[in-house]
């Protein structure tokens, strides 16, 4: 086990753990908004880390073998992770807004300013 | 053997999502299940070494199929057996 492999496996482990937490939160939380907290943050973070493992793999192979295809692998994995982080936030906002417009109120809420604002 | 486990799980997920598409009375939920079906079948094509087909299914199934079904549901009605 070299240092690079340890970093890669650590990234994979972190990614799997946070993805698992996200899915458990999706199953356990009581209403839409809290479920969205779990899925948006945790699965985005986990997928960024699994992609990071691939990036580390590609870069280490690129520097050890000087083969430019591994550079392509690293860059494309980075682009996939970046698109993921960008679009997940937007779609979470869209679904939250739509859920609130369709009349679903947060369970256990102590305050709901958006319903008072009457937009 | 261990490499086949994701393949088997994806195939089972395909069957499950097809049954869900049949089962839901709410057409919006049925469309969502069809979207899940499309994602899983794209992953299956990817595993079967057909990246061309996977890209095609990704581009079509991720956006356009769901979009046209949602538009048609918006024009007609959300529940099965509903009429105006």
């Amino acid at each position, binding site marked *: 086990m070299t240092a690079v492999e340890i970093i890669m496996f650590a990234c994979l482990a972190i990614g799997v753990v946070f993805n698992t937490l996200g899915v458990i*939160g999706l199953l356990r*939380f009581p209403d839409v908004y809290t479920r969205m907290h779990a899925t948006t943050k945790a699965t985005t973070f986990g997928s960024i880390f699994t992609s990071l493992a691939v990036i580390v793999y590609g870069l280490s192979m690129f520097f050890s073998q000087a083969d430019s295809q591994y550079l392509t692998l690293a860059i494309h994995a980075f682009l996939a992770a970046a698109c993921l982080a960008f679009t997940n936030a937007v779609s979470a906002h869209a679904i939250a807004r739509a859920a609130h417009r369709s009349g679903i109120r947060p369970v256990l809420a102590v305050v709901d300013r958006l319903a008072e604002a009457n937009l | 053997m261990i490499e086949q486990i994701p393949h088997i799980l994806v195939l089972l997920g395909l069957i499950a999502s097809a049954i869900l598409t049949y089962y839901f009375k709410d057409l919006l939920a049925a469309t969502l299940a069809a979207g899940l079906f499309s994602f899983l079948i794209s992953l299956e094509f990817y595993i079967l070494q057909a990246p061309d087909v996977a890209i095609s299914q990704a581009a079509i199934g991720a956006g356009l199929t769901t979009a046209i079904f949602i538009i048609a549901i918006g024009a007609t009605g959300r529940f099965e057996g509903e009429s105006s």
Partner: protein
Amino acid sequence: MIAFLVTAGMAFLLYLVLTAGSGSIGFWSFSELVMGVLLAILNGLIARNFLCRSKSYRLLDPRRLLQLLVYVPGPFFVELTKANLDVAYRVITMKIRPGIVRVHSGLKTDLGIFMLANSITLTPGTLSVGIDEATNDLFIHNINVSEGDEKRDVIESTELFGLANLPAWIRRIAE
């Protein structure tokens, strides 16, 4: 004209990133560069009214770009990590006290609002639910409203972040 140049330039940069590692001029081959220029011109002709809809070219300032490049892996990533530890804690213990609060942002441009909303969505315990189009205030679903906050009408956006002052960064970048 500026819009066309900006869009074509960004498209060309993205094309270069996508095709890195194809040849010998730097990382690129000659035909890739020619094709990249052609496709970037086509892209600029089609999409110039989309990318530059607001007609503000603040991000062309290199200092702002540099700050953007520091912001994403720096303070933003730190807050993202903290958010995930927070979510892990809430998933395991189920201690939640949710509520939707109004947050005063003080930002004016579309890009600033967009960046703040996305940062809020990905950072601790908060999720942007709605936006007041007139005053640019955001409505935030907070998973753990702290004591006393439910009485207040408006919360300042800097109070949401613990470690780094993200709204100040966004104001420096986008305003």
